């Protein structure tokens, strides 16, 4: 093995994607703040009555716009990660693999940020809204932000983590699919289809009085899948430890030879 490839690089080499990570977090933060500002500005004004023409103007237009943009963003990001993939990962050096694990961790951090806004902030905020307003549509001002903005955004980010890992990390080619990673992404993803059950239930029964109703427990069980991150962290630490050990051993041997 060419030991020059094993020489440790400066930290900036491993954290090459850090600027893009900061940009992604800030852009997403801006999107969420804009959504909250819109709710504060127009929810009580035009979001109380689904048959009001202003509801169509202010809320349904927002809904159609965000859905179109999300589809475009998903296609662009997922295609980019797929098209720029490497067909074989045999040539990846330990340093490159370490760098990729750092980037993969940054991808997970972006996913965590979107997951927080989706299943924590906007979900409980939805409860705050429906304790005030009894719904007459599936597209309430809170639902438009939770189900059709924040959920799709974390699904896009989650699939990005899967695509990155499968196309850049050698262990996903040699060992197969990480069970914990699939759980981490698929569980919260399934919350979106579960919205269908939720909307059906809210049409069939009167559910407004009780946020902890059994109808909502599907969200709870799928939310537990976030714990899949525990396994993913252990897998990262295990592989990074292996690489660092090999780097350390090789460097020691090189020093002894010289």
């Amino acid at each position, binding site marked *: 093995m060419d030991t020059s490839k094993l020489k440790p690089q400066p930290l900036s080499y491993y954290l090459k994607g850090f600027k893009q990570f900061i940009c992604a977090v800030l852009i997403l933060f801006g999107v969420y703040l804009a959504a909250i500002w819109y709710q504060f500005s127009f929810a009580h004004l035009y979001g109380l009555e689904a048959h009001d023409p202003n509801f169509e103007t202010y809320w349904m237009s927002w809904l159609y716009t965000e859905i179109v943009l999300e589809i475009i963003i998903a296609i662009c990001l997922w295609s980019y990660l797929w098209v720029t993939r490497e067909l074989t990962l045999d040539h990846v050096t330990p340093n490159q693999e370490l760098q990729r694990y750092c980037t993969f961790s940054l991808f997970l951090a972006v996913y965590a940020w979107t997951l927080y806004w989706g299943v924590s902030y906007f979900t*409980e905020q939805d409860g*705050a809204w429906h304790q005030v307003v*009894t719904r007459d549509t599936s597209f309430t001002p809170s639902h438009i932000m939770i189900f059709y903005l924040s959920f799709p955004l974390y699904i896009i980010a989650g699939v990005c983590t899967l695509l990155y890992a499968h196309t850049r990390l050698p262990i996903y080619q040699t060992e197969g699919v990480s069970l914990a990673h699939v759980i981490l992404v698929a569980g919260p993803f399934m919350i979106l289809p579960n919205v269908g059950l939720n909307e059906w239930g809210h049409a069939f029964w009167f559910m407004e009085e009780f946020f902890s109703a059994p109808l909502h427990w599907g969200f709870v069980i799928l939310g537990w899948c976030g*714990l899949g991150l525990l*396994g993913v962290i252990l897998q990262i630490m295990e592989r990074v430890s292996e690489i660092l*050990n090999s780097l350390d051993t090789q460097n020691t041997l090189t020093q002894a030879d010289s």
Partner: protein
Amino acid sequence: MSNTLPSEPNATTAHIIKALEWILIPTLFFVIIGSFHIHMMLTAGDWDFWLDWKDREWWIVLSPVVTITFCAALHSFFWKNFRLPIGATFAILALLTGEWVVRITGFHAWSHYPINLVTPATFLAGAVAIDAIFLLTRSMLLTAILGAPVYALLFFPSNWAWLAAFHVPVELHDQVMTVADLIGFEYVRTGTPEYIRMIERGTLRTFGQHSVAISSFFAAFLSSLVYVLWWFIGKSFSSLKYIKERI
């Protein structure tokens, strides 16, 4: 974990490990906020949202039992892999962060409920206590037997400091009620109906009307069982498994 780090890592190795820690620990924190918060809000949320739902029987049983879940899962993860007895405090800090952000910006600023009405319960005293017991015993079983009950028993006392003032009786239109009830009646919600609060429908006034104590001890018993169950759930999620076959 089967691999350990080099015994004397060089500077670059140490920097990489530290960088990964700085990325992955906040990542875990935000994911736990999300997972734990949605779990809490959709199983015990109504009792945590509203001041007038914080009764002396059901709220005291439900809240510790529902929240010890993620504490146990993270105990399993942090202790078995990193020898850190911080799982409960980490989980509760995440939960309270998520709750406080929405109570202030969502319930208070957007829906205009007074913050007194929507203050979340605290679990921090119990979380610190169960972590300390775990550190001292270094045993899942002993923590389930000793720590989980302490976690549940501390729930009501640690909340009583801020809650007591709202349980003072007041008279309005010849009706005696608590200040909490009065605030609740002033701010009508879809969750307001009296019948929906599943409290004290029975005729028994247990143990000389000291419902809090018996509720706390019942919560303590249940918490022990739930702690063990969720320890293993946490262990299951900490899977290192890769699947090679096509699913």
